């Protein structure tokens, strides 16, 4: 039974966006701080540190996870995905990201990483959502800039496009 002492830093190893990484964390180090300041993955943002705003949302082993409500030591051995892992290539955008850009679904962009992660996980499970389902999902995020409508539109359009791509690959 590993007991990690409060006074020491411990090595945490995990998979970040498909690549093995490691860093040093105290038991109390929040995953949000760890990702941003130890690992250097600053795309995940922090807006409240009490679980409400959703800016820090990441995917841990397929579960949507508030990084601010998770300890770094908890992701030992886990597969973590963050906004940095969404695009297919450094100079390209994913279907979802591109839909966000087309619809002006972001302004300051501070809430965006968390929302993208939620939608990314959600659309895999629910490929054909209606607007109500998208809004219900988005209720776990606060965006102060957009009034949400452009985000909903982008999500629905990305879902449609992803279904098409999916259909093509399965029928091929």
């Amino acid at each position, binding site marked *: 039974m590993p007991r990690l002492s409060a006074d020491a830093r411990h090595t945490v190893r995990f998979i970040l966006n498909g690549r093995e990484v490691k860093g040093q964390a105290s038991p109390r180090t*929040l995953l949000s701080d760890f990702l941003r300041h130890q690992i250097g993955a600053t795309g995940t943002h922090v807006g409240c540190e009490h679980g409400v705003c959703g800016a820090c949302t990441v995917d841990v082993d397929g579960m949507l996870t*508030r990084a*601010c409500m998770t300890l770094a030591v908890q992701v030992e051995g886990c597969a973590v995905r963050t906004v940095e892992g969404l695009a297919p290539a450094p100079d390209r955008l994913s279907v979802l990201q591109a839909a966000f850009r087309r619809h002006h679904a972001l302004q300051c962009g501070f809430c965006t990483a968390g929302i993208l992660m*939620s939608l990314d996980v959600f659309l895999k499970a629910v490929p054909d959502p209606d607007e109500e389902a998208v809004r219900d999902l988005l209720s*776990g995020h606060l965006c102060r800039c957009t009034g949400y409508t452009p985000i909903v539109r982008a999500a629905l359009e990305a879902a449609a496009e992803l279904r098409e791509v999916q259909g093509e690959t399965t029928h091929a």
Partner: protein
Amino acid sequence: MKPAAFDYVRAESVAEALAVLGQEGSDARILAGGMSFMAMLNMRLARPKVLVDIMRVEPLARLEVGKGALKIGAGVRQARLLAFDGLESGAPLIAKALPFTGHAQTRSRGTVCGSIAHADPSAELPLCLVTLRGHVHLKSARAGRKVAAEDFFTGMMATAKADDEMIEAVSFPTPKGEGTAFREIARRHGDFAIVACAALVSDNGIRLGVGGVADMPVARDIPLLDGSALDDALNALAWELDARDDVHASARYRRELVRRIGRSTIEEAKRCRA
């Protein structure tokens, strides 16, 4: 807004977790989904010396229907329960209530037992547990015991669980043909309830559970009444629960919702049975 320091134990078995609780008593806390507890740590409202993470203890992840009860282990996350095939038949009330518990992003991590242990008077799962007359399975290094829901909750975030005990599982009796309904009024979607009502209607009568009003969820059995007799019963209940004012709602409003939402929830449960 960063937690005070603590040791972290990644328990690999129930016995290991219980050993730490046995040694450290109230200085140790279980960490489950963290969806309530981490906020308290971040705000330094809680300062345990050691956290015991139970989410890698495989036996705790059990979720099963059997012997007239739906039994949910301490490792079962709310999202998993919501997606569980047997939920609709095994606990239709929970199927209706769980979507009101937080958001997809909190249900994905938050556990069922964690919500029960947290004993927030506005939370949906404790309300369901009390309304359905479920049980809490407690375990310490010394012994295990099974506590009825109504004896488990003792006040605002206070329970009958001793410091050296953890919740191993909770169980909900499977339905016997009751009509069920759940309604909740909250300031925003996904917020804790100002008032939540859960109703079961059978030939024997009505059972109405109310969350968000008293300092713990409360359920009462009411005869199969209608019309003004039902109104009177609800009014009596509304007054009995000793509602308080807070930033989000007045005591009067809470009583009003017990009367009005209580009634519409009961009516819906009646329709559901029909």
